[in-house]
């Protein structure tokens, strides 16, 4: 066993960005290999290009429910055999669902990679479901909804804000589903969804860790390569947004709210839909406005006017159809949400009008590029970057070129992005309050 550790604690290796390999098997399954030889570990992920936004109306939560049911066994590996095998070798596993994709992963000692591939290949088409396992799992999902959403006023506001931000696109539905629809999901619906979307030609496998592209390719061909195409996949054309003309506001009141807050989300392009340079400019904009404790919002609202306890901005761009640009703030005691919102708007208005400084641009760039280096320290993070990007219509080259494109962002592009996309008409503002008293109401 000790021989394995040479890789981690051994001699110096050249510093370089990892050499990514990318190939497609004859059945259409894509494979990405991200080498990291520091520890004898691999992260093995399979990403299906199906998520909550691909569900049929009225069946929200089905993609996520099926994700849970994927652990219920196949003909070849019945019951919990998969999970038991993972545990027997000291591996970790889990899965997650978003609006655009469903992913399953294992982290295991490197020598078990092929066994994981065989198990994962088997459940692309081999799932067996009985009511005996489906029904308790539905209750598990309902408890998950309780934990994540029903028990949490902030999460409930988030759901209402998404529903208001998207007038027509299914991103307006919660990934976990609306509770009244989750309650009606069943085995037949899950299997129908499975047969429609789970097929090798709709999947991407990402392997990151102590492996070479050659061995992964050979193993993939012997496992995944043997799974026949089950169905053809239609283009992912979701109902798109009309011209949005009216700013929306949403107020959620709950007696348990002890700290009010305001959040605004703007509808913006995703990394996939943006024009060249646009999503990178939004990334820099979010950083200059609202990352850390030395950004514009923090300086203005927390440090300067001292009206907020916290504030920030973010750009969520890894999505097929739309990205989201958000700003938020929490007031100090005695300060109203209205004052916070005015303060936030003043900061946004300043950037729209006068842009950002060269120094702010440089700082943001060095930080964002450093983040890419830090990410290389974590094979699971890298695997997620590549998987999420490919599952939302990007390419390996695009992910690799991200630091270069960040370098190329100009101050003018950032100001232009702010001008174009910080448009209240394409936004929803959410208020989290204790009660709908007149002074806290924003309707």
């Amino acid at each position, binding site marked *: 066993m000790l021989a394995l550790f040479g890789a981690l604690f051994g001699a110096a290796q050249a510093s370089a960005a990892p050499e990514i390999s990318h190939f497609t098997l004859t059945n259409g399954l894509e494979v990405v290999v991200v080498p990291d030889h520091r520890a004898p570990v691999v992260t093995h992920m399979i990403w299906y290009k199906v998520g909550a936004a691909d569900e049929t109306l009225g069946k929200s939560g089905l993609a996520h429910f099926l994700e849970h049911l994927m652990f219920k066994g196949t003909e070849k590996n019945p019951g919990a055999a998969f999970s038991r095998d993972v545990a027997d070798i000291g591996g970790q596993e889990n899965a997650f669902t978003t*609006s655009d994709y469903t992913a399953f992963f294992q982290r295991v000692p490197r020598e078990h990679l092929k066994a994981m591939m065989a198990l994962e290949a088997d459940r692309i088409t081999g799932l067996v479901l009985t009511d005996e396992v489906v029904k308790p799992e539905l209750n598990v999902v309902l408890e998950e909804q309780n934990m994540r959403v029903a028990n949490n006023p902030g999460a409930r506001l988030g759901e209402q804000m998404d529903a208001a931000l998207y007038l027509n696109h299914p991103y307006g539905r919660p990934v976990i589903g609306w509770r009244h629809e989750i309650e009606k999901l069943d085995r037949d619906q899950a299997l129908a969804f499975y047969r429609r979307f789970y097929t090798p030609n709709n999947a991407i496998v990402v392997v990151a860790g102590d492996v070479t592209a050659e061995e992964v390719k050979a193993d993939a061909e012997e496992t995944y390569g043997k799974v026949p195409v089950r169905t053809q996949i239609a283009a992912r054309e979701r109902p798109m947004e009309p011209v949005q003309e009216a700013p929306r506001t949403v107020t959620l009141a709950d007696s348990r709210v002890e700290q009010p807050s305001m959040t605004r989300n703007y509808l913006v392009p995703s990394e996939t839909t943006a024009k060249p340079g646009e999503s990178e400019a939004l990334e820099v904009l979010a950083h200059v406005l609202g990352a850390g404790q030395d950004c514009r919002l923090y300086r203005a609202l927390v440090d300067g006017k*001292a009206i907020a306890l916290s504030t920030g901005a973010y750009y969520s761009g890894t999505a097929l159809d739309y990205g989201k640009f958000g700003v938020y703030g929490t007031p100090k005691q005695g300060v109203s949400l209205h004052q916070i919102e005015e303060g936030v708007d003043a900061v946004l208005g300043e950037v729209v009008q006068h842009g950002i400084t060269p120094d702010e641009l440089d700082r943001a760039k060095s930080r964002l590029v450093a983040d890419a280096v830090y990410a290389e320290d974590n094979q699971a993070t890298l695997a*997620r970057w590549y998987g999420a990007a490919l599952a939302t219509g990007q390419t390996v080259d695009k*992910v690799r070129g991200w630091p270069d494109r960040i370098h190329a962002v100009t101050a003018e592009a950032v100001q232009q992005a702010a001008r174009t996309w910080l448009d209240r008409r394409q936004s929803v503002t959410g208020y989290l309050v204790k009660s709908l008293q007149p002074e806290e109401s924003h309707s």
Partner: protein
Amino acid sequence: MSMIASVSFRSAIRRAAIALALPGALLAITPSADATTIERVVSDSGVEAWLVHEPALPLIAVDFAFKGGAVQDPAGKSGTAYLAASLLDDGAGDLDFRAYHDRLERKAIELSFSADRDTLRGAMRTLTENRDEAFDLLRMALTSARFDAANVELNRAQILSQLRRQTTSPGDIANRRWWETAFQGHPYGRAVNGSLETVPNISIDDLKAYTHRVLARSNLKLAVVGDIDAATLKQLLDHVFGALPRDPELTPVENVVPQGLGKRVMVNLDVPQAVVDFGGPGIPRKDPDFMAAYIVNHILGGGSADSRLYHEVREKRGLVYSVADSLVWLDHTALFLGGTATRAERTGETVDLIEKEIHRLAEGGPTDAELTEAKNYLNSSFVLNLDTSTKIASMLVQLQLDNLGTDYFSKRPAMIGAVTLDDAKRVAKRLLDNGMLVTVVGKPTGVASTTAN
């Protein structure tokens, strides 16, 4: 490169470990590795660091702990260590808050401090090219933090806001009630972030006095991983830590065992899902039975989807989304502590089932197959915690806090292997047959409170 926010996971079997911030969770999966490759670097002033030199990436991760966390908070001023930790990176020496953060941000240096019950903890990450600047900023934080009034008041207001939020958060209430019931009158009974009553009382002098007492060389445990060699590190150790006093001035803390065993404490809160914390006395880290207890706990409700609690409570009956427990070892007590959450009308059934499973394991012990599987898992999974610099650094600090040697990685498989079925049965009884303290927050049915709320 951020992911779309709405992500839903199949399982969160680690909820307890995260929510309760268990120090033991760091080693929930313990490693094994070649002992000879951890270098002990000792500087001229006697500062010791454990180093793993890994130049494959141009970055350095640093992790450290000073013994003396929230247990050192003065009476009536709980939250002192927590507030002090939040201020260490808010300006130091001639750099005020903004200037200090500007230096960090410009060089993408990540620096953070936190307090837990037993330690004041810090972590830093830097690109190799900014190494000297990063270590210098760390030196300033540790030796000349400013505690400017405006920053103290801001952080105090942020903590008070967090404390107010926690008064209506079922998970936080369940956790606080568990600790204050189990350790009434002992520093462990106080929440690390203090309370709405105590945090307003903490003065700047209290914060300075705390850091003055705790930041010293002889109670420091330090690990460095990444693109730095021993000779360079040795110089930096003296530069960063050399000016600290040799010894801390720590208030002695009594050893203690949890109280309230057999009690169920109910707190009414209008939420659809009741949150449950449960636990009892554990086995100290130094105890010869520790490894057997660790294995037994893994079988009961440890990290894998194979555990008895996960299987019986979630998989078979769909009562909960997550249920897990961990061993917790602190300097002055040891526990097993777990948590779950379920809908109101199933709460009684869920708590009864957990107690039944714990009783069943205490009485019958694990099966031979369970023991073998658990040993395999714990032996094979160690390496998963050695794949990032920050994970390795944090683990090396934990090993030092636990008084384990640099050879622990190579000795661990034999320690696990030596646990027999008889050991496991005996220790299951010793660990799990003491009764539990249970806290329940929500509006559950079918659970009788043993104490007035």
